[in-house]
């Protein structure tokens, strides 16, 4: 399945958002995720099924003004 993760294309076998995070070695309670511009809560990642062409954003705390 082809997925766009943080602006980069990945060919990946993951079927859920939680599987995708694990496959790409993402971990931490401080991560926030969105699929196709909508928030996916941490608690819903394991059930959230991905589709070919989905755009995934994985964000974390950063400096800000």
């Amino acid at each position, binding site marked *: 399945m082809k997925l766009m993760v943080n602006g980069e294309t990945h060919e990946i076998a993951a079927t859920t958002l939680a599987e995708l995070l694990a496959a790409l070695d993402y*971990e931490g309670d401080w*991560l926030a995720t*969105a699929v196709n511009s909508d928030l996916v809560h941490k608690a819903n990642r394991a059930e959230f099924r991905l589709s070919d062409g989905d755009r995934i954003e994985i*964000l*974390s705390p950063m400096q800000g003004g």
Partner: protein
Amino acid sequence: MFDLFGTTLPSRLLLGTAQYPSPAILADAVKASGTSMVTVSLRREMAGGRAGEKFWSLIRALGTRILPNTAGCHSVKEAVTTAKMAREVFGTNWIKLEVIGNHDTLQPDVFGLVEAARILCEDGFAVFPYTTDDLVVAERLLAAGCKVLMPWCAPIGSALGPINMMALCSMRGHFPGVPLIVDAGLGRPSHAARVMELGFDAVLLNTAVAKAADPVGMARAFGKAVEAGREAFLSGILEPRELAVPSTPIFGRAVFS
């Protein structure tokens, strides 16, 4: 002391966390400023979570309240989704709402701002809107559910200081009961003191401290200026006069001729 959404903040200085020479200097500057709330953002995590973890640990260790922002968002959708993601990560419904409308001036898209503010207020957020000094926009933001307003005094990062004192004065006069925080454009402590002397409730700044030759010293200076400006406002400032007025009593002066 400063009350926002039922929370008392000891300091009227809000400080950004970006552009410091090092994490250690950021931490020292935050302490020196006396601030009780810092702004943070969310960005793409490219290191599996390790980049965010470092910064998040540093921020939590500061012990201040956190005000996440939607910096860099150019649409209502981006800002709303970013705000929701920030609520989940930072565990607060407070959000500094930015919807940028122009790349050069970084001025807010006030139409998108009002729309995003309405959506987020209805969703239970305490929205701190980064806005202009326009009174009509301010009224629309209040009507959308905002309880606090954050007008710029000059473009973000410009260090120009208050370029339209009349507009800021007018804003303070029109909204006597609304917490008003000057956000963006402050360059030096005297700028902060000037807007605090007008009766603004607080200031939010970042670049003026982070990019100073000595950020820790400048943070301390801003902390003092904010306190001085507030105390001056509360003490009743003398209005300027056209003519000289002697300060030493005329009565009883000696005559030698």
